[in-house]
């Protein structure tokens, strides 16, 4: 059974850096104290982050004509779905209800804006925007996993799943970087 920590007053905000790469900032009102997340919130953030990438992959599958981009998008959809299915099974087993929180909300809001803006693109412009964002997005999520979510997770199984996720998403980041280099 998980112990739920009371969420700290610190707000976790997500901002767009340079218009492309979203960056996590964990800062309190005074900008000093890192946010403390409980396991239910961490599970929610990880699941939300996975779902965002699945939605982006589905958009790419519907819009792209480039085989390498399509292969990558299918891989993202498949891998993130596998992790999220595992996460759902885990929270069920632990009898935990994932808890919405400012980080998940900021991630979702940012992702919705990106989906809307990429919907207006097509052809190579879309492919480039999608793949560049995949590089930035995986970097962001990997940073958050390393510095915030994995260290913050109390439950060993959740921590283990997040660690597997980090390993996987680093592979994705590498794959996205290789793909981005070929699209230039």
């Amino acid at each position, binding site marked *: 059974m998980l112990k739920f920590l009371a969420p700290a007053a610190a707000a976790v905000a997500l901002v767009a850096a340079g218009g492309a790469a979203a960056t996590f900032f964990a800062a309190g009102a005074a900008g000093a104290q890192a946010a403390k997340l409980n396991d239910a919130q961490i599970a929610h953030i990880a699941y939300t982050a996975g779902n965002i990438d699945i939605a982006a992959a589905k958009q790419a599958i519907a819009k792209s004509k480039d085989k390498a981009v399509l292969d990558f998008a299918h891989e993202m959809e498949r*891998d993130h779905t596998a992790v999220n299915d595992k996460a759902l099974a885990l929270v069920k087993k632990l009898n935990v209800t994932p808890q919405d929180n400012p980080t998940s909300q900021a991630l979702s809001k940012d992702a919705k804006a990106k989906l809307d803006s990429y919907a207006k693109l097509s052809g190579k412009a879309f492919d480039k925007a999608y793949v560049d964002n995949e590089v930035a997005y995986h970097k962001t999520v990997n940073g958050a996993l390393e510095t915030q979510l994995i260290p913050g997770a109390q439950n060993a199984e959740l921590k283990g799943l997040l660690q597997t996720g980090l*390993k996987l998403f680093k*592979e994705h980041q*590498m*794959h996205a970087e290789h793909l981005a280099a070929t699209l230039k």
Partner: protein
Amino acid sequence: MALLSRCVMACLAGAALAAASACSPAAPPKTYQVVLKDLMFGPLPAQARVGDTIEWDNEDIFLHSATAKDGSFDVDLKPGVHQPMQLKKAGTFDFICKYHPGMKGRLVVSP
């Protein structure tokens, strides 16, 4: 005398059979399990030979592959699968998972 002779004959015949067996190039083929777990290929056999079989055991929840860089083999490995692959040629094969190229291995196959 006749009995001794039969014994000698039998021994010689036995020795000949043993020699034939020792000279035979075909040791019985072996199967080696290679486990894929946590986005890594597990230990590979040190003495694999042509005719042996690698059984790829994917214990991850992700689709992987064993893809030789020189194109000698390319097998998709679904989660939970135990996929046999017979070794058909000798050589040193560097391979990756084409879906997660950070996963790497080197398979050495003797003639």
